[in-house]
Structures are given as structure tokens and as C-alpha cells.
């Protein structure tokens, strides 16, 4: 295969596979937060803040994959 094509394929695979894990993680976080909200609606504020921070953590892993994909694709 053409090296350029492999590079683009690798970039696509990097972000595609790398997004699976954070996606599942954010899904679990949202599930937990919804359950917490349903059980204790008064705790909306703290649950929301903590969920956002945890989501940002999970998202950061997807961002690592994204950085790799960018480096592969345009550098």
C-alpha cells in the first residue's frame, strides 16, 4: 500500500478505536449520574459538577487518541 494511504488509515483507526473506550466510560458516568439524580433529585448541583469533571477525565483519553490522529494525519 501507498505510505500516505496507510498514514491516513492509521489516523482514522487511531481516533475511531480510541473513541470507543471514552464513549463507554461517558455512558457509564451518565448512567450513574441519572440514577443518582432519580434517587436524590435535591443533589442535582453537586452531581452535575462532579459528573462534568469525571466526563472531562474520560474525554481526555479520547483526546489523546485525537492528538495521535492529528500527528499522524498532518505532521
Amino acid at each position, binding site marked *: 500500500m501507498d505510505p500516505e494511504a496507510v498514514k491516513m488509515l492509521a489516523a482514522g483507526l487511531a481516533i475511531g478505536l480510541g473513541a470507543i473506550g471514552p464513549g463507554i466510560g461517558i455512558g457509564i458516568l451518565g448512567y450513574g449520574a441519572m440514577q443518582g439524580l432519580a434517587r436524590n433529585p435535591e443533589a442535582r448541583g453537586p452531581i452535575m459538577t462532579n459528573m*462534568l*469533571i469525571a466526563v*472531562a*477525565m474520560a*474525554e*481526555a483519553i479520547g*483526546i*489523546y487518541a*485525537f*492528538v495521535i490522529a*492529528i*500527528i499522524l494525519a*498532518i*505532521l
Partner: protein
Amino acid sequence: MAERKRRFLGCSLPVLIIILIVVLALLIIGFLSGGIGQKLLEKYEINLNLPSWLIAESPAPHLPASTLFHVFGLPITNTIIAGWITIVFLVLVSWLITRRMQLVPRRPQAVFEFALGWIFDFCVSVAGKENGRKFFPVVCTIFLFVIFNAWLSLIPGFASILIHIHGHEYELLRGANTDVNTPLAIAFVSFIFVAYYGLTTIKLKWVGQYFNFGPFFHSIGNIFKGKFNFMDILSGVVNAGVGLLELLSMFIRIISFTFRLFGNMTAGEILIMVAAFLLPLAISWAVYGLELLVGFIQALVFSGLTLAFASMAVTSHEEEAH
């Protein structure tokens, strides 16, 4: 009986209709001049002859910041200029607001006090009253720098001022955190402060957490005294290994801090670029809103993690166990 005008969304009906038409026209023109619209026009062979300044250029993201000029041999990149603009902005705003402090605050001062009070409460709630007050300056500085860096680079025109140097076009300004060096510098600052607080509060215990060879050598010494206890040696080795792993994780933390912030800011920039190319106006508004949120959350995460690690560093493991 006085005539009562019907009002929708605070405007009278004709004004509302005019606003709707203008917005719709903008959206349609934006759609036609964007990447998807252009491709569709090409496919159905419609020739609209849009003026060339309307047609969106295809995005060309580039990762390394461009060097604009040199000062005493130091390369000055566009991200450095943006970073200094952020600093000057923060200093200027703080000075203007705190110049005439009043007991009963006026509106700008009240907003400022509310924001700082919110961060202060955050510090106190994580690290406790005494430590929270001690960590507040660092945490708040990191928070304000990161958030205003992200928000200032969202101002329209920030990244679109071009200058020509040696025949090349460069952006004059670019969000400082889209250059990997700025997040790395902030991560080092955060690391140094965590180490400083750890060293000044629990002193040698903080170092002892990472070089935990004491139990191991103790158990080896016991062999020569004739007391051979295999479990002691094993737990000594495990303790030393855990300490070294924590030392390693402290350095990995710097890298993860760096790439989290850098990746989020770069992803945001590229997302705006791509959205503004594919569907100008229609999607880029939503993306701008998302980026406001991302800037806030990343600032919160960066300063919150610094706070969490700092408060972990000032409580030794032995105290935790009690």
C-alpha cells in the same frame, strides 16, 4: 380602549418577521458557501456565481505554532503573544475592578467577587479550611489563565488576523494552549507547587512516600539477627515498589495534564475550523457554545486536579490510615 399590540419574543410582529428572514437568509447563504453546499451545487450543476470572498476556504490546521520573530535569539511564536495578551487582560481587568473597592459592591466588582468566592469555596470544600486558603492563589491563577485563554481565543477575529513575514502568511494570534509548550509549563508549575506544599508541610515524609525502602532494609537486617520472616521481606519489596510506582505516576501526571489541556484546546480549534468550513453560520454557533463550556470545564479540571494532588501531598499516608 387603547390598542394593544401583540408581541412575540419582545418584538412586534413585523420586526420579528424581518429578523427571521434575515437570519434565514444568512443561514442559506452560509450553507451555500460552505463545503457541503458547494459540493451539492457542483453535483447538480447549478452555477450561482457567489462572490469569491463568500466561499469558505478549506481548513488547513497546523500543529506547531508559527514563529513570528526573534527577540535576543528567543523565538516568539503567535501563541506566546496570545498568552501575554491573556495575562495583560487579566491584570488590567483586576486592576480596574479593584481600583475603587466598595463595601457594597457595584456590578463589575460583584461579578468578580462572586467568581473568586466560588473558586475559594471550591478550594475549601476539597482541601479543608486551612489548606484551601493556602492553595487558593495557585489554583485560582491556573483557573483564570486557562479559562480566559480559551475564551479570548473564541472572540471573532482572534485567529483571523494575518501578517506577512518573508512572503509567508502567519496568524498573529492563536490560543496559547493550542501550543503544547504552554500546557507543559502550567503542568510544571502545578507539579512544583504540589512538591513545595508537600515538602513544607509534611517535610521528609513526603519524600519517604516515594522512596519507601525502610521496611525492606529492616526485614533484611532481621535476617542477620537470626529472625527470618519471609512475609516481612515480601511486604517490604511491595512497599518499595508501590513507592516507586507513585513516583513514576507523579511524572506521568505532568504528561497527562499537558495533553489533556493541549488536546482539548486544539480539538476545539480544529472543530471550529471544520464547522466553519462545512456549514458556516448554521453549526459554528452551536460549536462556539460548546467551546465556551469546554474552556470552563478544562480550567476547572486543571485547577481541580492540582488542588486534589496538593491536598493529597499535605496529608501523609500514615495520617490517612487513622
